[in-house]
């Protein structure tokens, strides 16, 4: 809180309240009003998170902007919010994307406009809640609640095969979430009757229990990241989701899983984390190399970018489990950058899909002839996805690879193969879609970006280049917390 003003609560509840207001506009007769309220709400929602950055104290690893109130005293469950250097940027990232998604769906969504916009606003508030919750039950509530709007977005505005995608997603997540709840209840008992995550961090736990807790959390978080081999829901979900859904899924929701490792698995079970680090690193490297290769021959653009996401998230988990500062900070930077870049790429595909109603690479060719402005933006984001220096995509990968060399040269060797594979699948897709002579009459009829689309892409382009050329503002905010985190996970928590 600054000056008694509950910044985080406002960041959570303001978009949710606006979401309810949007719902109140009723059916599609009032669609323009719904869009306007949604835009105002989402922009305000972003503006209110800015004090979290400007007012953030760089020299402490303590939780900041803390709000702590009783919620269910019977079980000592609290409404306990706060941010540190690890979580603060994700709150901004979440709030940053909501207006972009609202604008991106402005004309494209014509049915149930109010419900669509409201889903995104409410989801935005809930995801901020996930990143800010310091009470385990509060976290769990946000965690589960987050899925509802996403299910609706895929289920109502999704593609033809949305039921299969939703069922698959459900199968994957159900198991993980339930195991996490069991682990939380165990920790409640072990910590002497507290659901505070910070108390969990200090609780001593024997090795066997740590391993079980780690595995329970692993199922919850690894599915979300997603890590190999629990990743196959993501390509299907992306393919079926509308553009806005894909953007939020890739940019924010995947980060929630990675964030879970940092907030729960590693600090609560540090000894198990070290014990199982080899497995985690192996899974991460499989994600980078195997998924990088799988992405190469995808014929559906969205699937290709979805696989590319999984491969890039492999860098994140690799960075976590090599336990050094480069790895950790590189991973966090990679998470933020991946938000921008994958979000931008899904928006690019959305632009094409809105015009051609196809995600199939083979249906395109020579788009640059009719959409040169779009081609330029797409080039920038494709290069960022290939990790070109000067774009945000380079920063995290570079630092994680440097950290991996420090841990074991061969980790870095495997991870650095993304330089080749990442460029190969991204630029090969770019070549087939954008370059060449006009492939067919549909491509010949394409119209270039509207001013609304240009506005969205300009914002993202500035962000991607800005972070690539000057990432210091992103990294300095996480320093103290990361250092403290590394000290914490290096300490054994086994009972004496």
């Amino acid at each position, binding site marked *: 809180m600054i000056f008694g003003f509950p910044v985080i609560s406002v960041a959570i509840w303001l978009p949710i309240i606006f979401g309810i207001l949007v719902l109140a506009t009723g059916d599609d007769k009032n669609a323009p009003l719904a869009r306007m309220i949604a835009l105002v709400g989402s922009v305000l929602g972003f503006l209110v998170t800015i004090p979290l950055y400007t007012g953030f104290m760089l020299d402490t690893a303590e939780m900041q902007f803390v709000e702590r109130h009783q919620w269910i005293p019977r079980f000592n469950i609290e409404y306990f919010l706060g941010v540190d250097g690890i979580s603060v940027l994700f709150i901004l990232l979440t709030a940053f994307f909501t207006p972009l998604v609202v604008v991106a769906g402005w004309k494209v969504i014509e049915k149930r406009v109010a419900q669509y916009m409201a889903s995104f606003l409410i989801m935005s508030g809930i995801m901020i809640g996930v990143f800010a919750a310091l009470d385990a039950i509060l976290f769990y509530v946000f965690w589960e609640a987050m899925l509802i709007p996403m299910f609706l977005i895929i289920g109502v505005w999704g593609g033809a095969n949305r039921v299969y995608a939703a069922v698959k997603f459900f*199968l994957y997540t159900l198991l993980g979430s339930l195991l996490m709840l069991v682990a939380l209840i165990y920790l409640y008992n072990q910590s002497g009757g507290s659901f505070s995550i910070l108390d969990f961090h200090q609780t001593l736990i024997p090795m066997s229990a740590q391993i079980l807790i780690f595995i329970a959390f692993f199922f919850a978080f690894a599915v979300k990241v997603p890590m190999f081999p629990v990743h196959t829901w993501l390509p299907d979900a992306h393919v079926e989701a509308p553009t806005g859904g894909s953007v939020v899924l890739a940019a924010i929701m995947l980060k929630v899983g990675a964030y879970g490792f940092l907030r729960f698995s590693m600090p609560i079970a540090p000894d198990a984390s070290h014990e199982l680090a080899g497995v985690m690193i192996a899974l991460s490297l499989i994600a980078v190399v195997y998924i990088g*290769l799988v992405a190469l021959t995808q014929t559906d653009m969205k699937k290709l970018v979805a696989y590319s996401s999984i491969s890039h998230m492999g860098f994140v988990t690799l960075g976590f489990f090599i336990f050094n500062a480069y790895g950790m900070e590189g991973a966090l930077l990679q998470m933020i950058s991946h938000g921008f870049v994958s979000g931008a790429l899904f928006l690019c595909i959305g632009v094409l899909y809105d015009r051609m109603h196809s995600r199939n690479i083979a249906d395109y060719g020579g788009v640059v002839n009719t959409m040169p402005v779009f081609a330029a933006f797409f080039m920038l984001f494709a290069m960022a996805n290939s990790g070109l220096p000067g774009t945000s995509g380079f920063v995290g990968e570079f630092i994680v690879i*440097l950290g991996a060399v420090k841990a074991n040269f061969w980790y870095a060797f495997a991870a650095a193969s993304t330089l080749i594979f990442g460029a190969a699948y991204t*630029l090969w897709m770019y070549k087939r879609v954008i370059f*060449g002579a006009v492939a067919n009459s549909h491509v010949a009829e394409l119209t270039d970006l509207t001013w609304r689309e240009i506005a969205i892409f300009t914002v993202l382009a500035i962000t991607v280049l800005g972070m690539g050329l000057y990432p210091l503002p992103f*990294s300095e905010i996480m320093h103290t917390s990361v250092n403290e985190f590394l000290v914490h996970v290096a300490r054994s928590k086994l009972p004496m």
Partner: protein
Amino acid sequence: MSMENLYLLVPLAPLVGAIIAGLFGKVIGRAWSHRVTIALVAVSFFASVSIFNDVQAGNEFNGAIYTWLTSGHTSFQVGFLIDKLTATMMLVVTFVSLMVHIYTIGYMQEDPGYQRFFSYISLFTFSMLMLVMANNFMQLFFGWEAVGLVSYLLIGFWYQRPTAIYANLKAFLVNRVGDFGFLLGIGLVLMVFGTLQYDAVFANVASHAADMAPIPGMSVNLITAICVLLFIGAMGKSAQFPLHVWLPDSMEGPTPISALIHAATMVTAGIFMVARMSPMYELSDAALSFVMVIGAITALFMGFLGIIQNDIKRVVAYSTLSQLGYMTVALGASAYTGAIFHLMTHAFFKALLFLAAGSVIIAMHHDQDIRNMGGLRKYMPITWITSLIGSLALIGTPFFSGFYSKDSIIEAVALSGLPGSGFAYFAVVAGVFVTAFYSFRMYFLVFHGEERFGKAHHHDAHDAHADADDHDHHHGLAPGQKPHETSWVITLPLILLAIPSVFIGYVAIGPMLHAEYFGDAIYIAANHPAMHELTEEFEGPVAMAMHALHTLPFWLAVLGVVSAWFCYMKRPEIPAMVQKRFQFIYTLLDNKYYFDRFNDWFFAGGARRISGVFWKIGDVKIIDGWIVNGSANAVGLFSRVVRHLQSGYIYHYAFSMIIGVFVLLSVRTWF
């Protein structure tokens, strides 16, 4: 203006030009696009001249501009190192870039992508300057990849051509293979030295000379590992065997960029990088040997390929590959100054040759096949004379710039005692004949002999492009049409480049090679005395040229020119005869030693096949088919079975109850 601001001005001026032409090109129009970018590159050039003079006066600079990132306890900075090596490179880059900018006005005149082209070449100039001015590995890598990006954009400039967009993807990916090694090398540097700043690394490198590399499972010297990994990056960028495959294809780009990027500047980045890292390379004889052998293979075997090419640009491209091999050999022989010297002279005469080739291409209405040319000297005197100067410089004619640099390299290799230097010496000497032969084959076929243009196209070297009718496409002259000299914006750069192609060697060899010119920028260990001995023998440029008249390389060059004349002017039937006689060798050369086929089949095809297998079997069949849908099906199956238990009939339940009671009782009784 303070010197720091002047340093900043050099890269930023072309960047601003690139942004203006790129974002507002349509608004300000064609003329203003080239005016703005040329003016800003000229600013950059004159600033470089001023910095060069300042550095000569002894004012060097090494400092940060801003902190890019801090992570752990390491601070990654963007900063400049301005010493004599940098100042020389800045001068070469900005001068050639300025020439190419001016030339482009003429060459790209009719192209619809005019503003975009100026934006790209200015962006390239910025990137290349960031690369050479870097004072740390991170920024070096930034420049390294940024020039790769612009190269990608420019090779694919005519994006409608299938060959162009194939070539640019290939160039980018092959370079990425090199960068893969480069990045791992940087990672090892950071791990061992804890910093990426050149000065701090070089100051400590000697104390790690005997360390083993921290690579589990391999016992290899640390410095050797770092140097070889970094050199793999150089092999990509400077197109050394076996990562050379992208450079000939890069000729799909417009000719001005072939001159600027794929001859004079970007491809020499690898040479510059190794010279910059001389304090490290000097500590590893193994790495130097590796460098020398790779360079020697490139120098000789890529030269052979130049002999059978018929596309004027491809001949020059293979010549570039071969000359890059010479520079690399020089690096391996610890003649870093020789390599940089050859880099500089080569930048001038090779840019000249490419731009002259472009001039010929324009005159020939975009027919690039030298078999359709001949006798052009009558019609294009400036292009003819300047081409002759360029060719003479390239083959190492005494008193021309190329002679001083190339002869120094050959001498240095002769004096090197490293393993592999025997082969390297043979390669660079034999390469002299090859160079002279293919250069003058092209020269004679283009400028002398029968006029073969203006006829129906019996040779169609360009069938691959047959689909597009855009600019720079293979049209050729109409029957009866005569070529004519190109406009002044094209010939002026030719003349301005011809001047240094003649004189720069004569002027610069004394100070640059033999007078401690580079000072601390280049370090040569005492156990690699080749350059030192050369300096002791050196008695001025005139004496060096006179001495060369009775050495083997000179006579090999003469022999090369004479045989080219004999084979293509005097007895044109000989080449066909030789080709028939040695069909096997011709086929091998015509297929470029089958590298492209192998790479396409093994690497590109292999990756796609593995990808298909991983996806169809790993993801779709095992994970989704067996595990995900399998568990769903298992649940379904289970529920289908247990559904029968809940039939809803009272007597079923009563019967099960009785059975249950009976079983329970039996269990209690028996156990």
